[in-house]
């Protein structure tokens, strides 16, 4: 029960024990991944054989390929980075336009559109992937049959991966940005207009600075989620694999501590990103809400 009511000692103990057990449950997998990135053995499993940096720095001379020598893994990190940048850019742009559309404009059919905007969140990622895959190949075939065009970007590959991830990330960006726009005090805008500011000036100096935390927040969420997306990506991927798909393939083949090394790299990178955002002063709830892996 709540602190203002008497709580028996056993209940306090049980609560504390449960909390500790929960935190162990939450962090144990991550700790294990991090620890075995430094184990001096060719398989990420106990017993502990001593500390090594081989899984980061190892090269042919040591007969171990460390992360920084593993061209495939580094390439897939770069691929993920490129994909995530595009997805972020598209999602924030479309999300911002949608936020203004839903919060400021009034037009017939708005209700229907607001339901449609939510829809990508209730469609499983695998289905988003296959539907875009099938539709894109149909377009590609049509283009080839009718006009003789080679529309390679519609074949499985990175452009489709970007579109697939963007198809649901735009919804998340829309929700984050409209939530902030809804709380905006419109009298500020009216005051500025009354004082003679032009509409573009009001937009630039009042509305955008107010929206900025939501824009950076949704950009960070899009970037992290794009990096983590698996379901949609798996269906649309071509020759170049983003990191999650590459890791998945290697995890099925058998484990090497290089995967632990790249995972540790991911943890540090996303931890730093989260910290910067929290420090950035935007009230955390906005950012916290969707720190998630892919739907």
């Amino acid at each position, binding site marked *: 029960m709540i602190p203002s*009511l008497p709580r028996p000692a056993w209940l306090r103990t049980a609560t504390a024990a449960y909390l500790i057990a929960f935190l162990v449950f939450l962090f144990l997998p991550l700790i294990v991944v991090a620890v075995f990135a430094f184990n001096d053995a060719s398989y990420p*499993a106990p017993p502990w054989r001593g500390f090594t940096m081989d899984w980061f720095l190892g090269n042919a001379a040591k007969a171990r390929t460390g992360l920084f020598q593993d061209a495939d893994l580094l390439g897939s990190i770069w691929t993920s980075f490129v994909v995530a940048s595009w997805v972020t850019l598209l999602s924030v742009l479309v999300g911002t336009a*949608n936020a203004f559309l839903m919060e400021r404009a009034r037009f017939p059919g708005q209700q229907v559109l607001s*339901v449609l905007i939510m829809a990508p969140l*209730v469609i499983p990622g695998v*289905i988003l992937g296959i539907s875009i895959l099938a539709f894109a190949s149909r377009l590609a075939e049509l283009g080839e049959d009718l006009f003789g065009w080679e529309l390679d970007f519609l074949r499985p590959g990175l452009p489709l991966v970007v*579109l697939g991830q963007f198809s649901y990330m735009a919804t998340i960006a829309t*929700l984050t940005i409209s939530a902030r726009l809804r709380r905006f005090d419109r009298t500020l805008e009216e005051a500025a207009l009354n004082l003679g500011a032009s509409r573009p000036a009001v937009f630039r100096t009042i509305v955008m600075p107010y929206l900025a935390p939501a824009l950076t927040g949704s950009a960070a969420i899009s970037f992290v989620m794009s990096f983590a997306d698996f379901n949609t990506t798996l269906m649309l991927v071509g020759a170049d694999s983003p990191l999650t798909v590459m890791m998945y393939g290697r995890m099925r083949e058998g484990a090497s501590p290089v995967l632990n090394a790249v995972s540790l790299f991911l943890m540090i990178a996303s931890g730093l990103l989260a910290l910067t955002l929290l420090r950035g002063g935007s009230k955390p709830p906005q950012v916290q809400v969707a*720190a998630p*892996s892919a739907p």
Partner: protein
Amino acid sequence: MQTRWHARLMLALLLAPALLWLGALIILPHLDLALLSLRQRTGPQQYVSSLAQYRTFFHEPLYWHVFVRTAVMSVVSTLFTLLVAFPIAWIIAKILQGRASSLLFIVCLVPFWVSETVRTLGWMILLRESGVLPALLVKLGLTAVPVEFLYRDATIMLGLVYTSMLFMLVPLVSSLESLDNSLIEAAYDLGASGASILRTIVIPHAAPGITAGCIIVFMLTLGNYLTPTLLGGKNSEWFTEQIYTQFITRFNWEQGAAFGFLLLGLSTAMVMIGLRLAGQRFGDVMRRT
């Protein structure tokens, strides 16, 4: 006159990205997928429209067995997620206060900034036969030889509960935070027991958060691919895996499309039932998350 024209242009400019996005990436692809699922290949480049793909699903016990199994396991794992998350949400929203409360909330969300692949790798290192937990059990003398924990239903369930935790925790915390403590105090002063406070005050108040959390967790679990295939291996028998097999491995897109629609139908039906049970509207629920 000019401002009206201006307003129209603005509206059109704002509508364009939304319509392009929803039309080209959501609506048309799903219509196309529907058409795909309703045809049958009779020869090279020859198709007739038929319900054969759906018929195969019902006639082939393997397919609907996997379908039902995926649905049931998703429901069970959603309930487990709720049970595990509720006390933690209560601690964050009601027992701890101020900085301690928001710190714990942030700490609970941290693991979910890392991708599911990494978290699943952690579970594999912990649970596989040569992994940490079996070694520990042997050392403690609890088992004679290392036990294989992977490839079991319970392990799949564990992974699913773990990976969905965030999506349950966030709506639960926000709905419990809005509950006025004085209601609980009043009930206590009037002699209500802990159980009846929970049943008559806390749960009705938190119902929107519980519904939102359950719906999202269920959908994500149903559509999950990574956790069941990695933790369950060949024994996972998860429906998304069937879709992948039909689409990518066998290149039987018609069958895969039908499976996709069945999964989508199941997911939509469960969302509707959940909303009906809680008497809520879709938009309100999604806005909570």
